[in-house]
C-alpha cells in the first residue's frame, strides 16, 4: 500500500473514531435533557449493539466488500454522517414516555425503536473500522493506534465542544467529521465525492428545531412553557447541564414548596430556573428589605433558624438561592453556598449581590471534606424536583450527597451545638423522609454517636425537615420546635421524648407512618423494620449511592394487583425504564448479532464449542461490569457524572485497545493470559477496597480526570488482553468459530452494561467488581490451554 494511501486511511479512521466517540458523549447529554434518566449504561449498551451488529454484518458480507474497500468505507462513513443527525431527530420524536411505562407496556416498543435508531450510527462506523482492519491486515498496528487516538481525542473534544455549542448543534460537527473521513477515502473523482458532500449538506441544512432537544412534554420545563405568558428569558448550555430561565409576568410562579397553609402573603416576583428541562428552582426578587423575605420563613426548612441565632451557614446546593435568602432573612452571620453548575453560580452572583454571601463553585461532598470552617448550620435542600421525585424518575441516578458517608462528612463540619438540616419531599406512604432518617441514624452510629438525642423531624403537607444536632437536643430546643410547628400548622414527627398523641394532629395521615418508622429505626428491631418495609429504605452508601431507589421486587405483584386504585404509581419509573431497556436489548442483540450468523452454515456452537463460548461470554460480561462500575464509582471523585463517564469511557477504550494490541503480538499465549487475568483480579480487588480516592483532594476537575485515567489505565490495559489471546487461539483450533466468538462477546456486552447498572443498585459497585473478577477467573479456568 502506498505510504500516502496508508496515511490517509489512518487519518480517516482517527476522524471517524473520534466522531463516533463524540456522538456517544453528546448522547449522554442529549438523552439526559429529553428524558429523565441521565443513564450512561443505556447509551453504552446501544453503542455496543451497533458494534456487535457490525461485527456480524462483516462476518457475513465483509469479504464481498473488500475488493471495493475505498468505496465501501466512504459509503459507511457517509451513512454514519447522515445517520447521526437524522437518527437523533427521528428518535427524539418517537412518542416514548417513561412515565407511562407502568400503565402501558406497549411503550416498550417505542423504547426498542429509540434504542435501535440511536445505535445505527455506531453500526455504520464500526463497519468501517472492521472493514479497514480486514483490508490492511499488514498495517493493522498503525490503524489500531489511529483508531484509539482518534477515539480518545473525540471524547475530549466533544466534552470541550459542549462548553461552546449546545449538544444538538454539536451533532452537526460530528456529522461533518464523519463526512470528511468518508471524503478522504473517496478519491479525487467528483462523482465519488457526491455522497460525503450530501452528508455534509444534510447535516448543515437540517433545521435547528430538528436537532435541538425536544424535551418530553411531561418534564417541568415544557409544562411551564405551556402556561400562558411564559417566555424563555435565557438559556445556557454546558457539560454541567442545560439551564433554562423562564419569566412569566402574566401568571407569576409563586414557587414556595411546602409552605404553611397558615401563610397568607404572596411570594415575590420570581424567575424559574430549570436544569435539563426539570428540577425547577426559583430565583426570587429581593429588594433589600428583610420583610420581603418573610415568606420563606413559612416552610419547614426554616426550622433550624428558630433553634439557633445568627449562625454561620453552609448551603450545600445553592440552586436558585432560596436557602441563601432564608439565611439572609434570619441575619446569618456568614453565609457560604456551594453550587456545582458554574453557570448557575454566575447567575446567583449577579442576582444576590450581598457581601455576607460567599459562593463556592464545586460539589458538596468534596467541599465538605476539604473545607476547614465549622458551621452552626448546614442546609441541604431536596435533591430532586417534586414531580421527578414523585414518579421515581431519578431512581437510577447516583446521589452521592445523600449517603451515610455524606451525612457523616457534613456532621463533622458542624460547630459544637450546630445543626445539619435536610429537607425532603413528603410522600404517603413515606419513602424519602424515612430513608433520610435511617441514613442519619446510621451516619451517627458510624461516628460513634448514639443518635436518639440528636435527631428531630417535622413535617408539613409537602415537605419534611430533619435536624441532626452536634450535641444533644435540649428542652429549650424542643420548646422552640413545638412553637415553630404550632404557628405554622406543621406536625412534630420525632424528637427525644415526643408523645405519640402529638405526631398526627394537623396534617392528618391515614397512619403516622413516619413517626412509627422513626421509633422503629431508633429501637432494637431496626434491622427487621428495614427488612419488613415494602420500599427500599436501607440507607444509601457511597458503594450503593441510589437514594431515590425505593423499589423492591416483592412489591411488584401486590402493586400490579392494586393497579385499579393507582397502585402502580408507587413504582420507581427510572428503575423500570432500565429493566425495560434490558427487556428490549435481549431480543435485539440476539436478533441482530447472533442469529444472522446461523446462515454461515459453518460449525455452530455445540458442546465442543461450549468452552470457548463460555470464555467469550464471561469476557463480554466482565469487561462492561468493570467499565460501568468504574464510571459510576469515579463520579464522586471526579465531582460530576459526565466528566467521570467520559474519562472512564475514553480510558478503557484507549488503554484496553493498547493492551489488546500488545497481546496480539506476544509469543507465549497461555502464560500471558494467566498473568493478565491474575493481574486483573488483583487490580479489581484493589479497586474495590482502595479506590477511587476520596472526593475533593484535587482542586481542578482536569487534574481529577487525569488522575482517573491514570488509575484505570493498568486495569484497562490488562483487560484488553484476554479477548485477542482467545481469538488467536481459536484461529489455530477452530477458525470457523471466530465470528461466533465475536457475536457471543458482543451480545454479552450489550446486556452486561445494563445488567451492571441493575446489579449496582441491588448489591453495590464493590460487588459488581468482585463478580467481574470471578468472571475473568472463570473464563480462564473453564478453557485451559
Amino acid at each position, binding site marked *: 500500500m502506498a505510504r500516502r494511501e496508508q496515511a490517509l486511511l489512518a487519518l480517516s479512521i482517527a476522524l471517524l473514531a473520534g466522531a463516533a466517540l463524540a456522538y456517544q458523549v453528546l448522547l449522554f447529554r442529549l438523552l439526559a435533557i429529553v428524558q429523565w434518566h441521565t443513564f450512561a449504561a443505556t447509551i453504552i449498551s446501544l453503542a455496543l449493539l451497533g458494534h456487535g451488529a457490525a461485527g456480524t454484518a462483516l462476518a457475513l458480507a465483509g469479504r464481498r466488500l473488500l475488493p471495493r474497500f475505498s468505496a465501501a468505507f466512504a459509503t459507511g462513513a457517509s451513512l454514519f454522517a447522515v445517520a447521526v443527525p437524522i437518527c437523533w431527530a427521528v428518535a427524539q420524536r418517537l412518542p416514548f414516555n417513561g412515565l407511562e411505562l407502568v400503565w402501558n407496556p406497549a411503550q416498550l416498543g417505542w423504547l426498542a425503536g429509540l434504542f435501535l435508531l440511536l445505535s445505527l450510527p455506531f453500526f455504520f462506523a464500526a463497519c468501517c473500522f472492521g472493514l479497514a482492519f480486514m483490508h490492511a491486515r499488514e498495517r493493522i498496528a498503525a490503524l489500531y493506534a489511529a483508531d484509539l487516538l482518534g477515539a480518545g481525542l473525540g471524547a475530549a473534544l466533544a466534552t470541550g465542544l459542549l462548553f461552546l455549542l449546545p449538544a444538538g448543534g454539536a451533532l452537526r460537527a460530528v456529522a461533518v467529521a464523519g463526512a470528511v473521513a468518508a471524503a478522504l477515502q473517496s478519491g479525487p473523482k467528483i462523482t465519488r465525492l457526491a455522497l460525503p458532500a450530501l452528508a455534509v449538506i444534510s447535516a448543515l441544512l437540517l433545521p435547528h428545531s430538528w436537532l435541538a432537544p425536544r424535551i418530553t412534554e411531561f418534564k417541568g420545563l415544557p409544562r411551564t412553557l405551556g402556561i400562558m405568558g411564559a417566555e424563555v428569558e435565557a438559556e445556557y448550555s454546558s457539560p454541567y447541564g442545560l439551564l433554562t430561565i423562564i419569566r412569566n409576568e402574566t*401568571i407569576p410562579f409563586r414557587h414556595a414548596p411546602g409552605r404553611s397553609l397558615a401563610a397568607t402573603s404572596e411570594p415575590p416576583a420570581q424567575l424559574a430556573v430549570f436544569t435539563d428541562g426539570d428540577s425547577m428552582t426559583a430565583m426570587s426578587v429581593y429588594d433589600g428589605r428583610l420583610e420581603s423575605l418573610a415568606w420563606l420563613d413559612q416552610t419547614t426548612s426554616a426550622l433550624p433558624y428558630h433553634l439557633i441565632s445568627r449562625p454561620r451557614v453552609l448551603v450545600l446546593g445553592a440552586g436558585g438561592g432560596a436557602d441563601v435568602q432564608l439565611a439572609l432573612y434570619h441575619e446569618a452571620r456568614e453565609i457560604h453556598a456551594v453550587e456545582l453548575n458554574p453557570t448557575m453560580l454566575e447567575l446567583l452572583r449577579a442576582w444576590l449581590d450581598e457581601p455576607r454571601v460567599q459562593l463556592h463553585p464545586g460539589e458538596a461532598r468534596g467541599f465538605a471534606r476539604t473545607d476547614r470552617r465549622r458551621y452552626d448550620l448546614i442546609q441541604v435542600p431536596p435533591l430532586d424536583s417534586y414531580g421527578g421525585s414523585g414518579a421515581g424518575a431519578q431512581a437510577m441516578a447516583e446521589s452521592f450527597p445523600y449517603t451515610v458517608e455524606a451525612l457523616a462528612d457534613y456532621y463533622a463540619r458542624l460547630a459544637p451545638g450546630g445543626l445539619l438540616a435536610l429537607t425532603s419531599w413528603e410522600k404517603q406512604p413515606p419513602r424519602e423522609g424515612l430513608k433520610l432518617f435511617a441514613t442519619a441514624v446510621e451516619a451517627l452510629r458510624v461516628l460513634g454517636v448514639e443518635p436518639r438525642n440528636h435527631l428531630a423531624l417535622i413535617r408539613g403537607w409537602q415537605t419534611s425537615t430533619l435536624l441532626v444536632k452536634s450535641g444533644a437536643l435540649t428542652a429549650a430546643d424542643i420548646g422552640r420546635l413545638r412553637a415553630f410547628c404550632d404557628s405554622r400548622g406543621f406536625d412534630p414527627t420525632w424528637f427525644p421524648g415526643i408523645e405519640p398523641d402529638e405526631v398526627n394532629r394537623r396534617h392528618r395521615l391515614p397512619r403516622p407512618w413516619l413517626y412509627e418508622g422513626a421509633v422503629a429505626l431508633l429501637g432494637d428491631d431496626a434491622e427487621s*423494620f428495614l427488612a419488613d418495609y415494602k420500599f427500599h429504605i436501607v440507607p444509601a452508601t457511597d458503594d450503593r449511592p441510589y437514594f431515590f431507589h425505593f423499589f423492591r421486587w416483592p412489591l411488584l405483584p401486590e402493586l400490579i394487583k392494586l393497579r385499579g386504585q393507582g397502585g402502580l404509581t408507587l413504582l420507581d419509573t427510572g428503575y423500570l425504564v432500565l429493566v425495560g431497556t434490558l427487556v428490549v436489548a435481549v431480543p435485539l442483540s440476539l436478533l441482530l448479532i447472533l442469529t444472522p450468523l446461523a446462515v454461515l452454515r459453518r460449525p455452530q456452537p455445540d458442546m465442543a464449542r461450549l468452552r470457548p463460548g463460555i470464555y467469550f461470554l464471561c469476557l463480554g460480561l466482565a469487561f462492561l461490569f468493570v467499565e460501568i462500575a468504574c464510571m459510576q464509582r469515579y463520579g464522586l471523585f471526579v465531582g460530576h457524572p459526565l466528566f467521570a463517564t467520559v474519562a472512564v469511557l475514553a480510558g478503557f477504550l484507549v488503554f484496553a485497545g493498547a493492551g489488546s494490541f500488545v497481546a496480539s503480538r506476544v509469543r507465549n499465549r497461555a502464560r500471558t493470559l494467566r498473568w493478565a487475568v491474575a493481574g486483573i483480579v488483583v487490580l479489581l480487588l484493589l479497586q474495590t477496597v482502595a479506590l477511587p480516592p476520596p472526593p475533593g483532594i484535587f482542586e481542578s476537575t482536569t487534574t481529577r480526570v487525569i488522575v482517573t485515567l491514570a488509575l484505570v489505565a493498568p486495569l484497562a490495559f490488562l483487560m484488553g488482553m484476554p479477548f485477542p489471546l482467545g481469538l488467536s487461539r481459536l484461529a489455530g483450533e477452530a477458525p470457523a468459530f471466530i465470528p461466533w466468538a465475536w457475536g457471543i462477546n458482543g451480545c454479552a456486552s450489550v446486556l452486561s452494561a445494563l445488567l451492571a447498572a441493575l446489579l449496582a443498585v441491588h448489591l453495590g459497585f464493590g460487588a459488581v467488581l468482585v463478580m467481574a473478577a470471578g468472571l475473568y477467573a472463570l473464563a480462564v479456568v473453564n478453557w485451559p490451554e
Partner: protein
Amino acid sequence: MLRCPRQFTGWMLAPVFLIICALPLIAATDEATYAVERKALLAEIQRDAAATADSTGRSRFNARVIGAMDTVPRHRFVPAGNADSAYANRPLPIGHGQTISQPYIVALMTELLEPKSDDVILEVGTGSGYQAAVLAQLVARVYTLEIIEPLAESASARLEQLGYRNIQVKLGDGYYGWPEHAPYDGIIVTAAANSIPPPLIQQLKPGGRMVIPVGAPFHTQDLILLRKDAQGKVSTTSVLPVAFVPLTRRR
C-alpha cells in the same frame, strides 16, 4: 434454536396480518360498545372502592357519583388516538404534558368533595374538562379555570358541544380563584400545585371541602383533603387512594 429463524420468518408476520385485518373492526367501535365498557369500568371502580374502604373512609362510592360518571362519555374527552383506552382504568395523556386522571381517582376525588345538588364548585385546572363534566351532573354550577390556552379552548368547545350548560370555563390564573362566584361549596385543584393558594382557601365556604391530588403526571399518589369547619377553621388530611400498607403483614 439458532437454526430456526429462517423457517419462521413467514409465520412471524401472522400477528401483524391479523392486526391489520382487525383495524377496521376497532375503528367501528360505537357508542354502544363504549357504554358496555363504561359499565364494566364503573363496576370495577365500585369493587376498588370497597377494597380501599380503610384508607378512604368509604366502603362504596355514592350511587350519584357513579351515576354521574355513567352519563359522561369519557371517550369524547381523550385524544382520538386513545379513545380505545378511554374506559381502561388508567390515566391518559391529553397533550401539553397534561393527563386525564385515572377514572377511579376521578370517582374518589368527586366522592371526597361530597357534592350536593345545589352546590357551586370551583375547579382549578380544567384539563380535558372530564372532571368538570362529572361534577356538572351532581351540582348546580361548576366554574373551571385553565392556564394553558389551547386546553382551555378545546375543553370549552367540547363541553359546549356535549351540552353542559352549567359549566363555565375561563382561561386564567388559578391562584386568585374566581372571586365573582365565590364562596364555593367545594374546590378541586387538579393542576399540580407546589403551594395551596391562600385565596382559594378564602373562597371556600365554611363547611366546604377542597381536594388536591399530589404527584407527577401519571403518578397521582396521594390526595389532600382540606376542610373548613363552620367556624372557618381549616384542617387537612392525606387520603391514600390505594389499599396499601407499607409494612409486610407479619409485623
